[in-house]
């Protein structure tokens, strides 16, 4: 479904990605792990077109999307969340979700200003769709609240919900559990597991190993801009290269062994 070939990206002298290749299969959940600075977020940014790679290609459903601008990549059904939830703070919770819906509508400038009946129907449909997602993520009570006023845990859910509104084929989650407490993390894990049933392909970057190992069909490991391992969660846990990469990070080794 998604195929990366030899992606390279550097910032100044720093090689953030140094020839990364891997593939994501339709319907699977791929965990992307690695120490801090391994290049995981950069990889997401390259795939979603936020900054283009220096060399290498990205294919989505056999189409080369390497040089496409962000919004056109989204148009193909690739959506993501961010490490720091980047919700639209001044807008209400429901409006945030309706922005997620953007590609489901087609009203342009003239239909926006003259509001023909079909545009009203479309608005109504988008609103209902957003409300359905709102219910799904359990935020129905705060539909009209300013998104900026939500507690952190709910922001994460809102951002996830916003991406879901877009009806993604491929969903990329950048540390969805960071900053969440135990309980919220469990809820989130269950929620993501539920998405599998909707046939959404998911790539998830996560430091919380229980989440990654519990959810992922496969795991890929990045270190210093290179892919050092890929495979089933159990196999990766005992891969010597992975252990070496995490060397010195005692907690990580512990969490890997857990």
């Amino acid at each position: 479904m998604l195929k990366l070939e030899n992606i390279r990206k550097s910032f100044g002298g720093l090689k953030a990605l140094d020839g990364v290749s891997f593939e994501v299969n339709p319907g699977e959940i791929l965990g992307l792990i690695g120490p801090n600075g391994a290049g995981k977020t950069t990889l997401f940014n390259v795939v979603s077109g936020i900054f283009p790679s220096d060399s290498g290609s990205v294919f989505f459903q056999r189409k080369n999307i390497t040089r496409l601008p962000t919004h056109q990549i989204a148009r193909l059904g690739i959506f993501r969340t961010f490490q720091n939830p980047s919700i639209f703070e001044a807008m209400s919770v429901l409006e945030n979700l309706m922005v997620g819906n953007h590609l489901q509508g087609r009203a342009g400038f003239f239909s926006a200003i003259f509001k023909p009946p079909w545009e009203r129907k479309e608005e109504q449909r988008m609103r209902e769709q957003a409300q359905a997602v709102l219910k799904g993520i359990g935020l129905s009570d705060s539909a009209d609240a300013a998104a900026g006023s939500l507690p952190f845990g709910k922001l994460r859910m809102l951002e996830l919900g916003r991406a879901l509104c877009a009806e993604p084929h491929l969903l990329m989650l950048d540390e969805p559990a960071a900053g969440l407490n135990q309980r919220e993390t469990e809820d989130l894990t269950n929620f993501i597991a539920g998405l599998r049933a909707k046939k959404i392909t998911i790539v998830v970057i996560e430091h919380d190993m229980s989440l990654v190992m519990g959810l992922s069909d496969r795991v890929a490991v990045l270190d210093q801009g290179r892919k050092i391992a890929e495979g089933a969660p159990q196999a990766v846990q005992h891969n010597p290269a992975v252990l070496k990469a995490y060397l010195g990070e005692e907690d990580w080794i512990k969490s890997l062994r857990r």
Partner: protein
Amino acid sequence: MKRDAVIWAALTLLVFTLPAFVHSPYYYSVLIIIGIFGIVVLGLTMLIGYAGQISLGHAGFFGFGAYFSAVLTTRFHLDPWLAMLVGLVATIVLAFLLGIPTLKLHGHYLAMATLGLGMVLQIIFKEEVELTGGPTGLTDVPHLKAFGMVFASDQKFYFLVWIFLLVLYGLSINLVHSRLGRALRAISSNQTAAGSLGIPVNRLKLLIFAVSAGYASLAGSLYAHYLSFVNPSPFGFLVSVKLVAMVVIGGSQSLWGALLGAGLLTALPEFLAVLQDYEMLVYGAILIVMMMFAPQGLAGILAGLHEWVKNRDHKKNAQA
């Protein structure tokens, strides 16, 4: 949406009942000027408040419309309405072309670039003497006519300007409460996130820049026909600043707030005129104080009051 529709209806009511109380053409002319600036400010609010892009050069587009109307009607004897339309289209095309490189910039760089564009436009108005009449300006711009009526008197022109404003206000309300309006607010909040959701960020910024320039151009045409005179001085940097100040003082997050700002900053100097030489001092102080204590503008103050009254009622009810 609902609240905006109510305010629109209330404003419409006000516009059509006010003449029962206004007898002096002087007050009409103040209202006309408020209406003209109000039209510019409607567009600018969508650009600044909704899409989050600053422009310190909109007086240039305002002037572009005014000069198109004045030049085409006096030198080429075009029908005023046609001239207005040509000016509108030309301004939109110009803003679109200039916007392509300009809107890639952010923050202070965008402010500087738009400021530069405005300056260059004003210099052109000054220097192309053959066409624009230079600093002396062009006189005897004809009156607008429609349905066998000449918009010469202040009262008639008042209705014309405010009907224009009400229509544009209505269209703007529709726009900001649409899919595109939400996308614009998303852009103003976080461009990267907006783009990742499939919103064509650059294209929408360009669109709203061109639309706001179009509003300014229409207002400029009306201005030229109202004064039946144009010269370069009302289209300079300080007027661009005044326009932005109207938006920000009124409250850039809402269209009606910005209209309030246009009203206040146009009418205020009329009242401040008694202060004579102190006017500039007071104007500067108002800008600073407003931004310090009411960064959300007049609209913010009113919303706060509304909230306060609601809460108080709530408490009363709870106690009862």
